[in-house]
């Protein structure tokens, strides 16, 4: 399949990209292209201009900032999977990245692209939610920080405004336990349901593919905070949620899986 025709611009710097984007509301950022290009080929997206930020080297890094780790938006899944720093300080994130798609996807896809895309079925947005991370964005009117828990708004819709680019992802170092449960039929596939649990102080739990956006399992977290058991907390896994029904799973089965996987994730996390 071929995408509809479009203009292509290679951005040399973040400012450069921002200025093109803020002048043209039909322009879109191109990072690894592994979410955007498939949509364009299916003609589900037809941006007039692609602003390729792939060449902006200073957007790819993983740095120790003392109390947190800072990750440049263009860092590839492969680099997150294999970073020594992350394996030591946030092994959870390396592990999640290792389960994204297949090796070729992990060599192209970027963490910034995955989060900006905001797909409820993706692994990394849920991981950053469970880490309660911060997202640094820059736009025509400067820089701002958005909490991951406030970033995902609707189906493929985020808090990024026109002309804004996600620059950096900040995640805390993990001191307690963690777990990521990805349930799928083939290793290369998206999660049918995924559950991330991380203990940094208190335990945070997020869900993959249980709704139109990446979700925090607040009811589960509340139950735990109020001294509920793992059993009780997992029973609340899908409270108030309307998971999708598709070829891989009905909504009802997804709700059941969420319970089982939250139970497993919490058991693993709290045992550490």
């Amino acid at each position: 399949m071929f995408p509809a025709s479009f203009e292509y611009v290679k951005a040399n710097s973040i400012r450069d990209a921002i200025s093109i984007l803020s002048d043209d509301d039909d322009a879109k950022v191109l990072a690894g292209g592994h979410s955007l290009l498939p949509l364009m080929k299916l003609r589900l997206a037809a941006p007039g201009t692609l602003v390729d930020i792939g060449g902006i080297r200073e957007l790819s890094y993983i740095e120790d900032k003392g109390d947190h780790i800072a990750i440049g938006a263009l860092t590839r899944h492969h680099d997150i999977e294999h970073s020594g720093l992350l394996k030591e300080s946030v092994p959870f994130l390396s592990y999640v990245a290792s389960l994204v798609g297949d090796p070729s996807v992990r060599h192209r896809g970027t963490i910034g692209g995955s989060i900006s895309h905001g797909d409820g079925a993706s692994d990394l947005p849920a991981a950053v939610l469970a880490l309660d991370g911060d997202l640094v964005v820059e736009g025509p009117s400067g820089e701002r920080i958005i909490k991951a828990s406030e970033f995902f708004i609707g189906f493929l819709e985020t808090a990024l405004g026109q002309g804004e680019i996600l620059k950096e992802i900040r995640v805390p170092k993990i001191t307690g336990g963690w777990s990521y449960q990805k349930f799928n039929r083939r290793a290369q596939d998206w999660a049918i349901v995924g559950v991330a649990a991380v203990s940094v102080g208190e335990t945070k739990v997020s869900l993959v593919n249980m709704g139109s956006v990446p979700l925090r399992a607040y009811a589960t977290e509340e139950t735990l905070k109020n001294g509920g058991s793992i059993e009780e907390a997992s029973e609340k896994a899908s409270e108030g949620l309307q998971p999708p029904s598709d070829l891989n799973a009905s909504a009802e089965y997804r709700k059941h899986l969420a319970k089982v996987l939250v139970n497993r994730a919490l058991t693993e996390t709290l045992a550490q």
Partner: protein
Amino acid sequence: MTAVETSSSERVTGQRLLRREDPELLTGEAKFVDDLAQQDVLHMAIVRSPVARAKIISIDTSAARAIDGVVGVYTGRDLKDLWQQPMPCAWVVTPDMKNPAHFPLAVDSVNYMGDAVAVVLANDKVIASDAVASIEVEYEELPPVLDLEESATDKVVIHPELGTNTSYVWALEPDNAKLEAAFSSAAHVVKGRFVQQRLIPSAMEPRGLLIVPQPYGGEYTLYSSTQIPHILKIMIAVTLGISESKIRVVAPSVGGGFGSKLNVYAEELLAFTLAKKTGKPIRWMEERSENALATVHGRGQIQEIELAADSDGKVLGIRANLLADMGAYLQLLTPGVPLLGGFLYHGLYDVAAYSFKCTGLFTNKTPTDAYRGAGRPEATFAIERGMDLLAHEMGIDPAEIRRRNFIPKEKFPYSSSPGLVFDSGNYLPNLEMALEKVGYSKLREEQFQLRSQNSKKHLGIGLSCYVEMCGLAPSKVLASLNYSAGGWEAATVRLLPTGKVQVVTGTAPHGQGHETSWAMIVADRLGINPDDVEVLHSDTSISPHGLDTYGSRSLSVGGTAIFMATGKVLDKARQIAAHQLEVAPEDLEYQDGNFSVKGSSEKKMALGQVAFEAFTAHNLPDGMEPTLEATTTWDPPNFTFPFGTHIAVVEIDEDTGDVKLVKYVAVDDVGNQINPMIVEGQIEGGIAQGVGQALFEEAIYDESGNLLTSTLAEYLVPSATELPNFELGSTFTPSPSNPMGVKGVGEAGCIASPPAVINAVVDALSTFGVKHIDMPASPEKIWNAIHQD
């Protein structure tokens, strides 16, 4: 292995020679059809129906015509006068079979999502694709028929001119009285109803073609990603009324077919028609999603099988009844595919009474046709599930029920109740070897342990014993089945002046490694190095005669033709050598490429020398024709009947329904083996494909007839990460039907594996009272089965 005539001191056949095809494939140098350079070529793209069934009210092509670079836009109405005949179906299975006229482009109505309605020619493929998107077709949608049982009711008739959705009813009822007696005297009767879901063959390379009209003479060269260059050539000539002598068909490197490229497709006929009309070369490459819609699907059956058994579990009679999904039209072999299994619903068991009936039905879906195994995986699934149902009902171990029913070794050649003669077989040692290899009794113990601990992990062990009929086919048998071609294969073996050998074969390899295996056969027979043998194929101007590659026929039919032609060449060479060495031909020995006079070490002549003498023709026996070359056309006297035992072990997670294939053992008997590594490759790929059917793959349509699984994100082809290491073994029971004792291996893996896996899944779930799970056994289906009461 039995001895086969050879002239090498060291056998070439039986060795694990690396495939000579692989370097160019692995380095990306191989030329597939889309890699062939062509100047001044037009790109073809097809407008396809987005709906399952509709009347075409109007087609507006004006926007497309206005696009810069668009050269032509044609609808069915524009082209219909150029087609002498509808698209071919070569298998009229009953005299009254109903076959709707099917043209390369729909004219008045569309009958499946993907049906072609218009065609664009443009200077560039992206422009062609934009033009397709700009064409407006107005449809008046009609209610589609999607379900087989609903189709059989004729409440909605898809092709009104036929008056019914039933294409044919084909029955094989050798002795009904005997069958009735078997069932009425039976101590046990078990019944199964199984769905063979539709599969999308998903060859790695979709279809594609390039047609090049020659500037003068009215000749055309068609390069097509096809399994059947020879058959395609004849069919194009007949369907389009073009002289066969003006058509050359070439299959370049072909990236898999699995039966889906054993067809004559609309695009091939369209490209021919338009090349003739425009005088220009035309290229078309199928897109992946287009492949899911416009290339034939496989399977698509509802099977009912009944087994009658005596109190020892000995099967007395079998009754099989199928509804088979033809899809919207009959393609080349559509109606015959289920019948290829019709003789094998008793598997490798000695069953005296038998009946088989198949009703071919139209639906508003992509046409079905041959898909790896074609009819035999379905038959094997039904009988092997049936045997497990019987074992379960009687409380007998699944291995034991099979032992009790095998056709005993002494009965070969075995005349089966449906009327075949099984060439050779020795089933019991094959089963025992597989049981031993998998550690059967230990696994059963482990299963018992887990169950007694009330574990949430459930272990399942599934057996599948199979026999298949391959080596298509004795021409006379095909005649009795109303198939409109023969089943022979042709080969020419030619010694070149320098002593190198050229083999021309009518087989059309598309991944099977024929170049390697055929060279090994010749090298073995001539006592020379396989590197000195060149194999030519898949070009009708180089290899004019052939019936191509499908149905595990290439080795047992095509390879035998090569073996025999090589023998003829050797006979002639012997006469030349005898003449020159001035002895009688009988006085010559032949070994390792040299003729020598018995009892004398001096008087000898190398084969290469003989070849040169045959070329110069300076000193040949009186009356002998120059050059050293022979042709054989081999029509096999019978099918061949490979067999084997596959055992799958699965683990099921009770909480999620997740199923993991954890161990897989296959012991196959494909007769003598030419290259065991290639045999293993065929078996492994086949198993993976069958596991795909058992656990992952299904062409899913919604209630309006939209195909929902049109990309590889939804149509779940398994990869290596989903599969354990297969543990393979072999037994060797040569076929008496050909001189090399070979049987064929192309389809065995995917014939055996689906029932092995499903038997394992059902075995794991038997403690929940589960008796059957339809394929693909997805986690959700399994979870539902566990939790229903």
